[in-house]
């Protein structure tokens, strides 16, 4: 490629430089493509996989979790803790604690896929920031209650 000679090289070089300038000046007058983040927001795809969240079942007014513990077992980094207790007169355990340590979560989705009841789903929450680790220890039951502004029905998952 180096056989252009002294003037050939000069000509080739000058031409290539001018072509480059032409590209950037054209781009200068084209509209911007970035989004001014806090003022405008990107549309997040509904398939976005945020941290997990309990699914609200509108029929029962609670969640479908049956405290089988499959999700906690499937989790690669042990970030889920699921506890339940068997109340009197009920066939199954009812959920008492569902906590997520998001600092450890790698968003792999194993828990959602293994859940036999479809009680888990991904949240759309991507604006996550905090000052302490504890802010990322989520109590998912509480979050569910807060989202629907009502305490979970007593018979959650009981039917």
């Amino acid at each position, binding site marked *: 490629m180096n056989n252009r000679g002294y003037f050939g090289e000069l000509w*080739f070089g000058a031409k290539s430089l001018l072509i480059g300038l032409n590209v950037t000046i054209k781009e200068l007058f084209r509209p911007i493509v970035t989004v001014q983040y806090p003022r405008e927001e990107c549309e997040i795809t509904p398939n*976005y996989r945020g941290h997990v969240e309990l699914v609200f079942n509108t029929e029962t007014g609670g969640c479908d979790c049956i405290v089988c513990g499959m999700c906690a077992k499937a989790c*690669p980094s042990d970030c889920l803790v699921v506890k339940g207790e068997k109340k009197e007169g009920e066939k199954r355990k009812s959920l008492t604690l569902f906590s997520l340590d998001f600092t450890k979560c*790698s*968003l*792999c989705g194993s828990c959602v*896929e293994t859940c036999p009841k479809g009680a888990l789903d991904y949240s759309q929450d991507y604006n996550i920031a905090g000052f302490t680790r504890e802010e990322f220890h989520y109590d998912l039951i509480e979050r569910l209650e807060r989202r629907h502004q009502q305490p979970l029905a007593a018979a959650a998952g009981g039917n």
Partner: protein
Amino acid sequence: MENLAENRTAYTDLEPATDIPNENHYYLNMGPQHPSTHGVLRVLLEMDGEYVVDPQPVLGYGHRMQEKMAEHKNWMAFMPNTGRMDYAAALPYNHGYVALFERLCGIEVPARAEYIRVITSELNRIVSHHLWIGAMLLDMGAFTPILYTFDDREQVLDILEDVTGSRLTYCYFRVGGVCKDIDDKFVEKTRAFIKRQRERFDIYNKLVTGNIIFIKRTEGVGVISPDMARRYGVTGPVLRGSGIAYDVRKNEPYSVYPNFDFEIPVGRNGDSYDRYMVRLLEIEQSLRIIEQALDQLPEGSFLGKAPKKMKMPTGDCSFSVEAARGELTYYLVSGGGDIPYRLKIRVPSYSNLSVLPELCQGMLLSDLVAAMGSMDLVIPEIDR
């Protein structure tokens, strides 16, 4: 200067900084925080003026002992880790890992799932090359190309986010298929991207490929001869730049790659410019593969039947895929059960970077930056 380089043996070693072999030489620490080492790589340079006499990469700043982690979890639990080794092209890493278990346990994968894997992997390869073109030009002092390539990269990331749910460290493939099906919107957006990308090559070529400064900076810089590539086990675009058409997709075809018509671009001289050209042409080949895959996309299930509790047979198994940076091999030794006994991961950048001490002897510091930029290093992949 050439004499200095010649007098040294092919590979020389790190000496303590107090013991400088030549009193005119001195040490320069490039990294672990340096704009052009792309992460936490440190290169200890023995310098003579502006000439590099002996560059020694110092690894391990981002080391996470992935291979040990693999021995402590069941095979599915290690899956998210694969995407975190090479964060720039995570899907080929996913692909190799799931395909390894499919081969070991003899699991059938539905055709549609294989097509989805190929399409998304190739999109990921394009994304990785976009990132690399920008980063290499940034190393050489051109700021603008990285923003143009990132513009294109964003288009692909949006497409991939829509189906995988994440933008960078994907965990999308599953043993027996993929975890989510693609829809018409995906196909439509991908076709739109292919069209757009073909138009954008014009800007790349005008701004970078034909630019005299870029040509002068990369031509004849960091020449890897085919022999040298063989001795070091260099693979991927770095190898193909040297004129050897080695690509796992052609050489040991996996998945549905034999169904597609594509070429392996090769360079002639093995210099940084050829490596650049190879990657640029590879984007076009990836577009061709995606186009054909979209045309042929079969209907059917996207996730085959894989046993929930999978027991591996005793034995060893190897699976190689063509990652964005070269040949990625997972070598698994199984002692039965569902936890790998040993998982060796052969990452391409590791072998590619090991050329550096021999490649960059007697080079100018600026050339070292250009040569290292053309290798497309991802440090967490090297450190694992």
